[in-house]
């Protein structure tokens, strides 16, 4: 997926990847990465959990404005052990 991001970014479009395996991103170096150590198949979290999903989406989209080239952002949110509120402005 990071390889696809690199190709899209090279075409002049800003990209951000959500990933669950950091070592692969460290090798492939996608332009911007949000790393969440969550199970496969759950990049935005748990089914039906809107506040969590919007929190991840908000973090990913806003990283487009401040992440450095190749940066891997690590919010450190633990799987099923965090409380989420809908991001300000997105209520």
């Amino acid at each position, binding site marked *: *997926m*990071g*390889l*696809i*991001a*690199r*190709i*899209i*970014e*090279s*075409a*002049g*479009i*800003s*990209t*951000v*990847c*959500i*990933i*669950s*395996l*950091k*070592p*692969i991103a460290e*090798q*492939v*170096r*996608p*332009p911007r990465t949000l790393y969440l*150590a*969550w*199970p*496969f*198949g*759950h*990049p*935005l*979290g*748990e*089914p*039906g959990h*809107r506040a969590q*999903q*919007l929190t991840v*989406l908000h973090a*990913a*989209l*806003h990283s*487009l*404005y401040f992440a450095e*080239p*190749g940066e891997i952002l690590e919010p450190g949110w633990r*799987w099923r052990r965090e409380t989420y509120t809908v991001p300000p*402005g*997105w209520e």
Partner: protein
Amino acid sequence: MTDDWRNRSLKDLYRLTGQIFSQIPALARLWGSAYRALNFDSVPFTPLRKPLNECRLALVTTGGVHRRDQPPFDMVDPRGDPTYRRIPVDTPLAELTITHDYYDHTDAEADLNILFPLELAQSLVRRGLIGSLATSYSFMGHIEPPHLETLLRQTAPEVAMFLKQEQVDAVLLTPA
């Protein structure tokens, strides 16, 4: 005969490890740290200069998502399928499904937003928080040579070109 046997064994192995990794993320991370991916020193970079409420966004996933009326991804070839599916902006979630045997997508089928947040993005556009949405694209992850070359030289550049034609400013990529 031998090839058939090899392909079947590989697919069984991928299916099994994919299911185990879906359940036990720590094991997946261990596998990830041993995985040899393509290695790059440089990073392509395009700064985003528009505010989000003026941006045209597209989603790209490698989770094997496709419309029910589109051909499913090829799960017969253990080296993967480098093709992609176009997902039009207004596709209702009920028309989408997932073909990808190498991870547990039970939860994603219950709520596709956890993998492919099309509905969330549609609602953010309606509320004026994101400028607009463009056609999204879906691939299947787990692509090995020789299909990897097809992905890198043909199908991914094609998608990049279509995104550019639709004047997309930003792309969110989500994995399986």
